[in-house]
């Protein structure tokens, strides 16, 4: 991993886009990194556009913003249309293929696809879709090992119901498995 990386999460309100960013921020902070998470959403919390930019760095973070993130996690079609051109060359585009009905046009970025909603539905609830994707991303990115990540999730979820924590961890691991098999 380079000294500083910036990951954009984008989708519509209600998809857990901001939560995903916050979880990654938490996890990275626990590994001792400098982190920041800049939120951007419209007046409408559900159904409107939502995105957040996570910066993870070995050093003090000067700018928590960027026009050109190295990685973009794209949860719906409007977000792909808006951010595809912004990703840095040789960057990574992670795509929720359940919700995005076209392929990216860029040929200078790595494209990782995942039917996030389908995988979440198989777990019985689409509400954990964001955790499925997060699991896959953490596995692929290699910021921390998965056991460590699960421990940190306990800290992040502290105070929530056991069943909810268990479901989210299950979803996280489904994502991890998917990445191991499909994103080699």
């Amino acid at each position, binding site marked *: 991993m380079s000294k500083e990386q910036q990951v954009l999460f984008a989708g519509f309100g209600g998809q857990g886009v901001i939560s995903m960013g916050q979880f990654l921020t938490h996890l990275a902070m626990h590994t001792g990194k400098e982190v920041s998470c*800049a*939120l951007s959403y419209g007046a409408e919390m559900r159904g409107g556009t939502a995105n957040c930019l996570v910066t993870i760095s070995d050093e003090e973070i000067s*700018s928590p913003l960027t026009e050109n993130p190295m990685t973009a996690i794209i949860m719906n079609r409007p977000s792909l249309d808006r951010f595809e051109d912004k990703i840095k060359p040789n960057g990574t585009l992670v795509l929720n293929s359940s919700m995005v009905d076209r392929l990216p046009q860029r040929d200078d970025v790595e494209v990782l696809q995942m039917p996030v909603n389908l995988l979440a539905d198989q777990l019985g609830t689409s509400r954990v879709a964001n955790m499925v994707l997060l699991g896959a991303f953490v596995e692929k990115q290699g910021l921390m090992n998965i056991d460590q990540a699960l421990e940190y999730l306990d800290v992040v979820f502290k105070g929530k119901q056991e069943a909810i924590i268990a479901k989210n961890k299950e979803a996280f691991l489904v994502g991890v498995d998917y990445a191991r098999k499909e994103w080699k």
Partner: protein
Amino acid sequence: MQRVLMKGNEAIAEGAIRAGCRGFFGYPITPSSEIAEYMARKMPTIGGVFVQAESELAAINMVYGGAATGARVMTASSGPGISLKQEGISFLAEGELPCLIVDICRGGPGLGGIQPSQADYFQATRGGGHGDYYIIVLAPSSAQEMMDLTMLGFELADKHRTPVMLMAEGTLGNLIEPVLVRDEVTEFVDKPWAITGCLGRQPNIVNTLHMPVEQLQTRNQHLTEKYQAIRSQEIRSEEFLTEDADLILVAYGIMARIAKKAVMNARSLGIKTGLIRPITLWPYPYGVVNKIAQTCKAMVSIEISTTGQMIEDIKLATAGKVPIHYIGEIARTPNPEEITQQLLVIAAKEGLI
């Protein structure tokens, strides 16, 4: 000590509580509402007072009442709400009542929008309400500083008996970062002037009406001397790579961090740039800006505002010594890459590349 992830707005609220603030009076407005939300949750559990007032006017006058009793109290709002509070802030200044007023700026004028802005600079740094006064204005640039400068704000307010404003952009209010949570403040200055019940002593009176000419003159003279003392003691600023710089960026709040990155980018492209970051917007670091103007070739004010507001203070500080450029827009926070591009244009114009 453990770092905790906090939104900038939450860091303000927690910092206030740790500074001993036990009274929050506000009226919610985006993008400041998380402060009120946090206080509504916390205050009742620590013996504090949270009031969602019926209006901004009511809220600021509750601050007046609370501060007059010697308690550490605060309010928080955004531009449109701060405008409404200005009458009360003028009264607080004349009553010499210490308190913290938080402005999480959004775009204006009018109701404007909820997107980030630094366009409340004028009303923050020029008193804002009627009459001859200033208030101390602090501009944090990280979630950590949202906490630290909130705590400093209460300290300065008590030290100088003045309202203090903490001014930040909506971007910073919503920025989540690790915060080292500071220890609770346990030592407070005495407030022998406070209205605490006068059994066994002469009554204290907090009053802002001074009809006799001499009384008004004496009051204003006293305030003027106090502002002079604040100017000599409380100016705070930061410099980054200014010593050999040809082109100096001046930016505050979150823009200072973005400008810092742009400085590094521009240096990698061969332009000798540096940054001055005012931390106190009033009193403004005129001396620092003036000193650096003697050695640099041009300056750029970078603000989240289209008209340019702080640029006027840079002009005052530099007194025509160097050309001053402007980069600014409203309703979004520019990225370092965009600023770097604009710096290239300015550097070319000034013959620096």
